């Protein structure tokens, strides 16, 4: 049974009611241990957990330290294209937006990678808009060998692909795929995705299953917090994670918790997620899943990012640009969204060290898994 069928079978209204009817006793019980327990996750995501935030944070910090030590994995997104055949009302890349469109060619890619390398990164996230014909499997297959030659760990965040295509990219050196469902509410989803292949809720939802079957090492899930009721979306992401962990136990999982940010022609969040709410989310997921990787982008502010260190975050980007070619020519006219923390990677790393954390640049030896790129 695919997760699409599981999601259809879930009593959405009932879950939402349970979220808002959870009691202090439910939260207290979850705080006694709720690893792998979806009802515990529900309690910790509920409004009833808000008064327990400090206790959640203490426990989440302890679990994170026990599992990950003081390490924070450093990665950087490399935007390779802002071409997009979708219309998504929260995203600056939407096809109707009058922005300059660009796809990095081989020479431009090499130049971007040189800048990124010089900052110390060895883990990279290839990001593109979703344009299957111009920036599709052929483009990715032609560039990943070049990227893999320079970076030990190669992740991508692009349109969903076919299982055979993921398989081919794994052979070329792809390690991880980030693919965010944005929202688990199909009605909200349809309202925000009004044109293009991204309209297909089911195909996107079932993508992690294809990715896992293709043998990708790590899968990143995410919801765009603010599109819908974030508590329910986060809970359903927990269900998704639980499903995937049970079905595909060889795969590692990470989550991202991006909040809706202002962008060109974009919308305001329907349900605002406060800083306090974001902390609750991070801690709830840590208490639910001690091994889960949680990544935090530069969408969040400098001071918030610094204070979130240790609460559950395991991966961080720093010094990011969200436009193709942005590391070589850092202007911001093509940005997908606004960056809130614009410190350099070095500055962020220094803050980590001063707070007792270890920025980890290299965490994988590519020689262990030879690829066709070698």
């Amino acid at each position: 049974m695919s997760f699409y069928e599981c999601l259809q079978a879930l009593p959405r209204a009932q879950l939402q009611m349970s979220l808002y009817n959870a009691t202090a006793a439910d939260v207290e019980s979850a705080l006694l241990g709720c690893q792998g327990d979806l009802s515990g996750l529900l309690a910790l995501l509920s409004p009833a957990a808000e008064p327990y935030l400090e206790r959640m944070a203490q426990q989440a910090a302890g679990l994170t330290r026990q599992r990950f030590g003081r390490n924070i994995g450093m990665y950087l997104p490399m935007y390779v294209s802002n071409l997009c055949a979708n219309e998504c009302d929260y995203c600056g890349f939407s096809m109707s937006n009058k922005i300059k469109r660009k796809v990095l060619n081989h020479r431009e890619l090499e130049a971007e990678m040189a800048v990124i390398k010089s900052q110390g990164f060895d883990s990279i996230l290839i990001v593109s808009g979703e344009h299957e014909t111009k920036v599709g499997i052929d483009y990715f297959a032609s560039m990943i060998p070049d990227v893999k030659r320079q970076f030990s760990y190669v992740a991508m965040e692009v349109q969903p692909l076919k299982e055979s295509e993921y398989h081919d990219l794994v052979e070329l050196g792809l390690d991880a795929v980030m693919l965010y469902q944005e929202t688990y509410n199909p009605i909200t989803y349809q309202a925000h995705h009004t044109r293009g292949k991204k309209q297909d809720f089911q195909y996107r939802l079932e993508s992690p299953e294809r990715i896992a079957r293709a043998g990708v090492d790590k899968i990143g899930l995410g919801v765009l917090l603010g599109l819908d009721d974030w508590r329910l979306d986060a809970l359903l992401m927990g269900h998704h994670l639980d499903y995937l962990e049970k079905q595909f136990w060889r795969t590692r999982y990470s989550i991202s918790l991006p909040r809706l940010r202002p962008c060109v022609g974009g919308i305001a969040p329907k349900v605002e997620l406060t800083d306090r709410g974001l902390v609750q989310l991070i801690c709830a997921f840590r208490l639910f899943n001690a091994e889960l990787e949680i990544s935090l982008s530069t969408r969040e502010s400098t001071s918030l990012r610094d204070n979130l260190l240790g609460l559950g975050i395991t991966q961080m980007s720093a010094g990011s640009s969200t436009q193709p070619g942005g590391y070589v020519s850092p202007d911001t006219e093509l940005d997908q969204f606004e960056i809130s923390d614009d410190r350099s990677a070095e500055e962020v790393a220094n803050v980590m060290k001063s707070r007792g954390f270890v920025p980890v640049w290299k965490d994988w030896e590519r020689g262990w898994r030879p690829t066709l790129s070698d």
Partner: protein
Amino acid sequence: MLKIADTVFDSRLFTGTGKYACANTMLAAIEASRSQLVTMAMKRLDFHSGSDDILRPLQGSNIKLLPNTSGARNAQEAVFVAELAREVLGTHWIKLEIHPDPKYLMPDPIETLKAAETLCNKGYVVLPYVHADPVLCRRLEEVGCAAVMPLGSPIGSNQGLATETFLKIIIDQAKVPVVVDAGIGTPSQAMQAMELGADAVLVNTAIASSADPILMARCFAEAVDTGRSAYLAGLGKVSAVAQHTSPQQAPLTAFLD
């Protein structure tokens, strides 16, 4: 209700046929245990004399027979025993046991996986007896085993759930029934396995070698029922002696104020 392959069981206590003083006691004990699945070693059956004292009485009852491959030292031997069992007993159910080590009778994970794959492909309902190894259990599930039977401690040792930590992981992960097999020496240990969420337990030595096997069989039946009910009712969580209401460390969320 417990379902393995296409068969539903009311009782979650499986038993065996070995170590009894006589066939009558064995039958009475099995009856007292209310068990509906009873394992027997194919190597013990006497096919030639036509007067097998284990098999004959059981064949007349409603109890499902689960032949086992005890004595097999590798996959090839185990597959042979399974085929023999199908031929002689007319069942395609097989408890796969491969122990090349005669001292502790530890199951061989590599040969077990090989034999399980072969037997599943041939259409057998395979219940493999294995160490409490979560990855091995997943691999066995992947090749098509109908259940997994991780051990609690060395077979016949009555040491209880020495592997509790790993049994919990297996129970958490398994998509097929988990039957804790081997090492359960007391009704309280059987109850503990059921409280953890095991789908069933297999107990033989503790019943058969008791001074009063019939009474002990009844005790195990009650313990298994109680353990299962407690699991379904939902056990309370264990907490530290006192819950700190205020943290001892510097607050981590003060920056939000």
